[in-house]
């Protein structure tokens, strides 16, 4: 298996709210630290990545946010307009078509066109020979992809499109993008999850669906926000005994609140461990853990910490 940083594209997906953007950003930071020229690409209209670096949104422009680390945000409208320009070899014609109501309807009606041009743009960003005039190639592109279902739809789009447009230029391009996504030496699909029941179930389901529907193997799973396990078994028993008032101890309400909180924290940790074990039992790909940052917000420092942790296995 190729090292993660030696691929051209890392596709980061997972259930909503598990920290995909954070992990994608930390991966980008780690890759840049390893000397790669890397681009982190967000999908959709809500840009969060640059905010972690205290910068305004990048939009549909490749912006260097730190030495070696670039940001970009792809949206279907701009991607369609750009695709048309290449396709028609004419800015005027593309503008005419892009601005036409009929084309707007077509674009909305053509199933998966939005997804196709989105993943097509991602593919273009990841090519050593860029189609974008005067654009330098990247060593690595990391996509902060949409949540599981939409993420799979994005990966499936080239194949869907190749099937609908059975011949012609669209079919040809879709086949090329599809081949790139399926080539494990070029593309890695990475999932992010939390060690909680529903995200774990969705991750297991994701691995199965990727394989069944697209013939893709998940490269790895990052289990995010794992809490530190501070208590040994004997210490847990001691806490329980103290709460129960054994040995004539009579804790004050404040002390009792601390004891309860500590025990609750321990129970959360244990629940996480059992979900992590469940994930590992059901998963073919490897599951790597990332610590809970236990900070007021992720921020630049948090990303650094995660990047350091990620560096151990790239």
């Amino acid at each position, binding site marked *: 298996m190729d090292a993660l940083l030696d691929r051209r594209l890392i596709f980061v997906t997972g259930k909503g709210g598990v920290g995909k953007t954070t992990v994608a950003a930390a991966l980008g930071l780690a890759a840049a630290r390893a000397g790669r020229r890397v681009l982190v690409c967000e999908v959709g209209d809500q840009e969060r990545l640059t905010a972690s670096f205290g910068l305004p949104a990048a939009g549909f422009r490749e912006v260097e946010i730190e030495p070696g680390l670039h940001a970009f945000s792809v949206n279907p409208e701009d991607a369609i307009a750009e695709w048309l320009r290449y396709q028609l070899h004419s800015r005027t014609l593309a503008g005419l078509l892009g601005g036409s109501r009929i*084309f707007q309807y077509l674009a909305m009606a053509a199933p998966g066109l939005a997804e196709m041009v989105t993943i097509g743009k991602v593919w273009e960003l990841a090519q050593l020979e860029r189609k974008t005039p005067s654009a330098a190639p990247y060593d690595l592109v990391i996509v902060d992809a949409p*949540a599981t279902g939409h993420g799979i739809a994005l990966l499936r789009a080239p194949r869907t499109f190749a099937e609908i447009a059975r011949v012609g*230029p669209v079919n040809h391009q879709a086949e090329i993008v599809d081949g790139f996504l399926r080539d494990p030496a070029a593309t890695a699909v990475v999932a992010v999850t939390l060690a909680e029941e529903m995200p774990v179930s969705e991750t297991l389901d994701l691995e199965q669906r990727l394989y069944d529907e697209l013939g893709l193997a998940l490269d790895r799973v990052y289990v995010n926000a794992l809490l530190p396990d*501070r208590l040994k078994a004997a210490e847990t028993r*001691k806490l329980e005994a103290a709460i129960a008032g054994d040995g004539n101890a009579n804790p004050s309400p404040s002390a009792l609140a*601390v004891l309860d909180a500590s025990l609750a924290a321990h129970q959360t940790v244990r629940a996480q461990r059992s979900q992590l074990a469940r994930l590992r039992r059901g998963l073919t790909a490897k599951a790597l853990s990332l610590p809970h940052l236990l900070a007021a917000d992720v921020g630049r420092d948090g990303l650094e910490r995660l990047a350091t942790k990620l560096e151990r296995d790239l």
Partner: protein
Amino acid sequence: MTARAKRIDGVLAGKRVIVCAGSGGVGKTTTAAAIAAALAARGQRTIVLTIDPARRLADALGLPDLGNEEHRVDPERLRDAGLGGDGELWAMTLDAKRTFDELIDRTAPDAETRDAVLANPIYRQLSNAVAGSQEYMAMEKLYELHESGRYDVLVLDTPPTRNALDFLDAPGRLARFIDSRSLQVFRASGRAGLGLVGRGVASMLSVLEKATGVELLRDLAEFFNAFGGMAEGFRDRARHVEALLRDDATTFLLVTSPRAAAIADASHFHAKLAESGMPFGALIVNRVREPVSATADDAELERELTELLGEPLARKALHDVGDRNLLAERDLRNTERMRAELTGGELLTVPELSGDVHDLGGLAAVAAQLFKRQRS
């Protein structure tokens, strides 16, 4: 800060349609099910329409794998979970594809048109995969059940979306692209070939052909040709669905977690909701961590804990409290930021509950939190 006591009861009073919206992973399905269960316990005949519920929640509600069928939740099991009452709780898992097929079946003028649409590759992709069609079909099913008059209250759990427009714009969008004026182009090309349509249109189509490939155009032409006869019916339907969403008896509940990213999504959604003039009822912040009342730097407390637990364990316990309070503070800050942004509607919080929320007992616990008196 006001001292006004707020309850979800006030938000839900007189509502017949409750739409729970928000980004993924914030507990939308659980919230929708808990509200439906609580309203059923209060004597209403209630149905919750869920999208892809967690397996154990589906089991708890008695939902089979097969979607689009109404199931009554066993009253005895509800009673055992503390959710007994005079009403009825029903549940259904939405199947967008089946809803779409059924809609075609109802709207098609004849069997031939219906079969042509159902077999068209464009339709098959549209009904399965296209962003927005799942959202639209959720609302379509909601409308259908509403019209049936079988339920006092309908609670809709919506597909997770980061893009509010996908959701709010969905009813209009489908109707718009089936709009007959723009369809004429494709219908003409399907019937008579490219030669017979106007010159401007012909050149447009030849450009499109160059850009896409002719087969795609033919499929599209066929699709729109078959769909054309149904355009009026679809537009009509979409208008009714949209009217239902704007009705006085409808309310939108935005569900979020207190994490910064989810709050940002909720804020975006709230703004779009207001912009579209949809009735906003409340923002529900789930899984809010509450601070531990004890302070970690209290010397007296530290002494007591050391005496009780020994020094290493006391330090660990205080460390746990420090972490918890840090996160609780973060949750509070994010929640308050959101509260300041809200125009109209209520903000309700549900604390992080220990234990399982994916069974009926868990729903009862969530409902108890939602329906209890909260202070703003």
